[in-house]
């Protein structure tokens, strides 16, 4: 189904929220208000927002370590994200998770600290959905570097073999840490690897929110209707650093500039303006609303207390638990 305007505006708002929030968090990390070293995704917001866009609340999303696009996309709020990053008692995990964002009741599933350990888990979530007949789809979003991880092939194999409702979504942002991806990835494209396991694939312009959304929607509906897994590769570009503190310098300035011209937020806005479904006034109002929401969330996180150290003994084991 073509993306309709109301939905497009919602996705646009989410992309703006993601970028604004990421910039703010980056400042907070630099200012040592937030203890982790963040990974941000300026320029690639359309991927996470577009991929999570067509999902049901109860669909499973296994997201990435980079930025907030799929987390905001799936429905987490800036306050939920900020309180986790701050490690405050008001966070969903009471300070335990940090950058490993999770919100089980809207299907935001574990982001393991070890890249690629989610491949098997995503298979399991999709298998579980199939066994329970719940119609839930699982989406596993991962970077092109992470596609090199051990369980990637086996996950494709299992998804194919058992015809699971599982979408492999590769966010190819062309960098793996401090090196161009072709330094450690043998092929230009990741997607054709799916064919080796009998899994269908598609390569999509990751800087076009409409295409990302529509391709994902097709794959998700196909999977929901028993059509089995699919791999989508989104071509995009990471314009910012790998992590806060990254010395930089390994991305050619012209390359960054060229991709800045394809910025997904600008493209989306310009198209909406050209189509007459968006106005400068709406834009102003949106920017302000997003800024206000984030300001309020930062304030909330700042003012929230740190967790009580005595809580570390809670929930070591499920059901009452054991002593350490």
């Amino acid at each position, binding site marked *: 189904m073509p993306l309709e305007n109301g939905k497009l505006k919602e996705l646009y708002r989410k992309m703006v929220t993601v970028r604004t929030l990421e910039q703010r968090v980056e400042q907070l990390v630099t200012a040592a208000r937030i203890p982790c070293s963040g990974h941000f995704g300026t320029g690639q917001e359309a991927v996470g927002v577009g991929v999570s866009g067509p999902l049901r609340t109860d669909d499973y999303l296994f997201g990435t370590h980079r930025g907030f696009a799929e987390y905001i996309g799936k429905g987490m709020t800036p306050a939920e994200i900020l309180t986790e990053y701050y490690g405050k008692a008001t966070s969903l*995990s*009471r300070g335990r998770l940090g950058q490993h964002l999770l919100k089980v009741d809207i299907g935001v599933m*574990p982001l393991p600290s070890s890249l690629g350990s989610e491949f*098997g*888990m995503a298979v399991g979530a999709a298998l579980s959905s199939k066994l329970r007949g719940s119609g839930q789809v699982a989406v596993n979003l991962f970077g092109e570097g992470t596609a090199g991880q051990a369980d990637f092939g086996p996950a494709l194999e299992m998804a194919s073999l058992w015809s699971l409702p599982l979408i492999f979504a590769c966010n190819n942002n062309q960098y793996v840490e401090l090196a161009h991806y072709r330094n450690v990835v043998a092929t230009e494209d990741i997607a054709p690897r799916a064919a080796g396991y009998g899994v269908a694939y598609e390569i999509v312009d990751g800087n076009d929110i409409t295409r990302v959304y529509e391709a994902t929607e097709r794959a998700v509906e196909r999977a929901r209707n028993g059509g089995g897994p699919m791999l989508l590769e989104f071509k995009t570009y990471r314009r910012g650093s790998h992590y806060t503190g990254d010395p930089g310098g390994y991305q050619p300035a012209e390359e960054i500039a060229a991709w800045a011209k394809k910025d997904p937020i600008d493209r989306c806005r310009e198209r909406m303006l050209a189509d007459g479904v968006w106005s400068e006034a709406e834009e102003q109002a949106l920017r302000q609303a997003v800024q206000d929401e984030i300001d309020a969330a930062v304030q909330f996180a700042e003012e929230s207390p740190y967790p009580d150290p005595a809580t570390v003994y809670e929930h070591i084991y499920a*059901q009452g638990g054991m002593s350490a």
Partner: protein
Amino acid sequence: MSQRKITFIQAVREAFQEEMRRDERVFVLGQDVQAGIFGTTSGLVREFGQERVINTPICESATVGAALGAAMTGMRPVVQIMFGDFNYMAMEITANQAGQWHYISDGALRAPMVIETPSGARGGAGYGHSQSLEAAFILPPGLKVAVPSTPYDAKGLLKSAIRDDNPVLFFEHRRLLTQRGPVPEEEYLIPLGQADVKREGRDVTLVAVSATVQKALRAAEELSRRGVEVEVIDPRTLVPLDKETIFRSLQKTYRLVVVEEGRRRGGFGAELSATAMDEWFDYLDAPVQRLGAISAPLPYSPVLEAACIPSEEDIVHAVLRVLGEEE
């Protein structure tokens, strides 16, 4: 009470059957579980179908990962890892993920899953098909570790493991698989964390793990003929550990020996001996004796393998040492 005797394999299979009938969220996955290489899952596919008895590709890491994903989303998988040694292939998932998400999600996620894994030395299986690695799961947080030594314990512990909301490793020593023992027809459970006194005695407390329980019992017979009465305790789970039962025995004997087939260096015996140091120092008339395999790979030739792991005779000597009757 029924006097029925069945094999360890049959006992495990019954546990599967009963739990799969009781709870449709329970399913089994692993390599060749439909046929059942060691028999514990054989025939289940006839009753429960291919949807609940799933043959997996040969990839331990992704299989345990899939079990974890299913466990976190409302199912209760039992994943079979054909040889205990291969658990290291899935160590990342088991130790870094499965045992940790309940805690770091502050209780939002649970991982009710079991890893069923035949293991141990049986003479001639070679270095990577013979190890007892249960002690490797004491260090990582959030896991439970079951080490049944009889058909009765195996059935009762597996049923509890399947119902537990935490990841449980369930080790089945391959020398025990075909042994028979009494198992009642009626349903029963054995709680995880409850040791069993396999033999009473007043002179020495001997804690033995998995297949070494039998060696310990034979050593106790031998020692009894020499006038030494050994109390043999099977902890049945290494985590949680039933310290109370061990301590109760120690308060009578003041002497502790611990034996396992896994390696001594960094093994369960180290943790138990250190626990005795921490908590029971004043009840030790002699240093705790710990026995385990030498810190070497397990060689293939049965004569060499036997020389690496504790024997009945080694246990007899350790008991005599703790009594000060030998150097």
